[in-house]
């Protein structure tokens, strides 16, 4: 059985009912040739985005940033400062858009919520025993519910990579379904932790598994393992959301997270979105960057475009 975009749309909802059906489906997806995928990603990275296109891309990228801090040392003061920056990334320039969301640990959600209330900036919280996910399911669900109750409208969960790599797809699926339910109205981003999945075939399968189980977004990484978001991994995920929409009619967002630090990188990702899934995904509702230092580089480049002069780090806030 193959997952063709033209296959009957009703088929897919039944897959989660049996381990065998899931396995058959996921292993019937077309393979990914590593070298070819990496070459395509590299090729997309050679697009030259200048002048007006660049200005447009920078503002879009700012609106797509999930401004993130996920440190053991995070404090209410730290996250309040971050949230303030999310609202007005460049205090000197009111035309600068706000970011997409602020992303913190569940315990920090209430402090961020105070700042963001009514702003249109989303509040994302990691949950489900982030980053390892190695906790009993009940605790993961409680973690999720607590974050939502505290004001998070987006939940970034981690999948059970151990179960996935061991081929226990049903278990992974069920956890996502349960977490989605625990989210209530909050959007669910499913972190695949692609750095631990090791092969693009697995990235594609995990993407489909997350989408089949109801994830609203698929996200590359926690930022807590050595390999975070890469262009080819994101390419494979974009192909997955594209094919999933063709198969089911439902659109799922994509969030590369970790390791995207420069405007140049961000623009490469936007080019990849543009040429792989098209303009429908060129929107903060459907594509996000999980990042922290990226924002300042975007701001510096934005200032360069508006003033014609290269700026320096001293002119932008560190939060």
């Amino acid at each position, binding site marked *: 059985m*193959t997952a*063709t975009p033209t296959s009957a749309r009703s088929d897919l909802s039944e897959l989660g009912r049996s381990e065998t059906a899931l396995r058959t489906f996921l292993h019937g997806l*077309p393979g990914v040739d590593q070298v*070819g995928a990496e070459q395509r990603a590299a090729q997309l990275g050679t*697009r030259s*985005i200048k002048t007006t*296109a*660049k200005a447009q891309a920078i503002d879009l990228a700012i609106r797509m940033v999930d401004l993130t801090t996920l440190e053991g040392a995070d404090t209410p003061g730290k996250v309040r400062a971050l949230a303030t920056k999310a609202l007005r990334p460049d205090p000197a320039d009111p035309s600068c858009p706000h970011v997409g969301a602020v992303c913190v640990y569940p315990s920090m959600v209430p402090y961020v919520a105070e700042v963001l209330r009514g702003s249109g900036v989303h509040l994302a919280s990691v949950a489900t025993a982030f980053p390892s996910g190695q906790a009993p399911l009940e605790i993961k669900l409680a973690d999720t519910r607590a974050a939502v109750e505290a004001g998070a409208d987006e939940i970034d969960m981690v999948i059970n990579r151990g179960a996935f790599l061991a081929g226990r797809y049903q278990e992974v699926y069920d956890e996502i379904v349960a977490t989605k339910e625990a989210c209530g109205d909050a959007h669910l981003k499913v972190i695949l932790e692609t750095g631990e999945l090791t092969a693009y075939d697995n990235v594609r399968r995990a993407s489909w598994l997350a989408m089949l189980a109801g994830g609203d977004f698929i996200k590359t990484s926690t930022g807590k393992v050595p390999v975070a978001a890469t262009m080819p991994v994101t390419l494979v995920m974009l192909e997955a959301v594209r094919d999933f929409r063709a198969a089911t009619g439902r659109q799922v967002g994509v969030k590369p997270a970790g390791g995207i630090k420069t405007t140049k990188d961000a623009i490469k990702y936007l080019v990849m979105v543009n040429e792989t899934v098209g303009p429908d995904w*060129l929107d903060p509702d459907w594509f996000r960057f999980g990042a922290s230092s990226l924002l300042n580089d975007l701001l510096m480049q934005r200032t360069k475009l508006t003033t014609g002069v290269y700026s320096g780090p001293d002119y932008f806030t560190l939060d």
Partner: protein
Amino acid sequence: MFEYAPAPESRSVVDVKPSYGLFVNGEFVDPTDGGSFKSINPASEEVLAEVAEAGAQDVDRAVRAARTAYEQVWGPMPGRDRAKYLFRIARIIQERSRELAVLESLDNGKPIKESRDVDVPLVAAHFFYYAGWADKLPHAGFGANPQPLGVAAQVIPWNFPLLMLAWKIAPALAAGNTVVLKPAETTPLTALLFAEICQQADLPAGVVNIVTGAGDTGRALVEHPGVDKVAFTGSTDVGRAIARAVAGTRKKLTLELGGKAANIVFDDAPIDQAVEGIVNGIFFNQGHVCCAGSRLLVQESVADRVLESLKRRMAQLRVGDPLDKNTDIGAINSAAQLARIRELSEAGAAEGAQRWSPPCELPERGFWFAPTIFTGVTQAHRIAREEIFGPVLSVLTFRTPAEAVEKANNTPYGLSAGIWTDKGSRILWMADRLRAGVVWANTFNKFDPTSPFGGYKESGYGREGGRHGLEAYLNV
């Protein structure tokens, strides 16, 4: 929503002279019995330069210069020293790579991203590779003391002007021959810039001679009794004529001719990469590629899906100014080639195949052809048999591996083939049976100086690249 602003590469890096002479015996000279012709930019039809057309006497002068250089300088020179000159040339090519890339795109019409990222780096790599062979010939597997042939007459096509020059000149010089090379009449400029590089490298006079001109110049060169070796890349028809012209002589001949490669996609292929491979296979360099994957053979069970993906991908191709860094498909090289592509495409439609191109705005001036696919093609269609040498793909289907092999081999050509499947044993089974000199499995249009390239059947004989490429220039 996300329109890429123009990102043109600067032309100012290259200094195109108003006119060029012939490069004979180390200097640029006026033709004695030839005329001149204009080389134009196919993207704008603007005249780039006036170029000398070598007549029979000019060719004779070049062959004599090459003979003298062979006998007095290059032949007796130790391989170690020949190597150093070739390394020097390779380095200068790297140093002047942007200049070469821009000039190649101007004269040929190919996108700057290809001349910059593919052609010119491969040119430098080719000289590096063969430079290293110059002092190692006894270890190349052709006996203890292989000898050069003498003067090599080399005639190259317009699709990869500088790369084909490198494929010809680098092994010839490494083996100890001297050369007279004729670039194609529509793309002579980078060869003339290469002549300047030879001067800059202090390459001894007469080792490399460049005679510009059209078919008559080429004929005079190939038929000149003073040449010991003829190497040609181009059409099968001209290749045939050259094979006849050297019949009964002792001239050693290698030919790299046309192709009609099958790119075979099985239902278990990595589809997204296969689609990239199909696109790269037929739209790379506007399809002006002898090994282009111009026949897509797709397994019936995935045909719809592959075509859907292919069309979606084709809609992303950016056709236009070759110097724009975001251009994927540049200009067709000449009015004549454009007419040929149009004629065969019209034949395809007239014979009942379904034609499709993505919506695509073509510039008004210059020679352009939108990326095109034909579906519903059968083996009997002209577009499935004749080399179109343009951005036109014929799509056929098959049901079993045996049928795929049968269709793939059902052509007088045999240059290249592609296989896309996740099953390793099937790849090897297919590769064994495909009558083609290069088989790309789960990839396409990859080139490397170490990798022999050349065809079976009417795609020619001899190999270029690798250790095998030396054989064409040694008396073995």
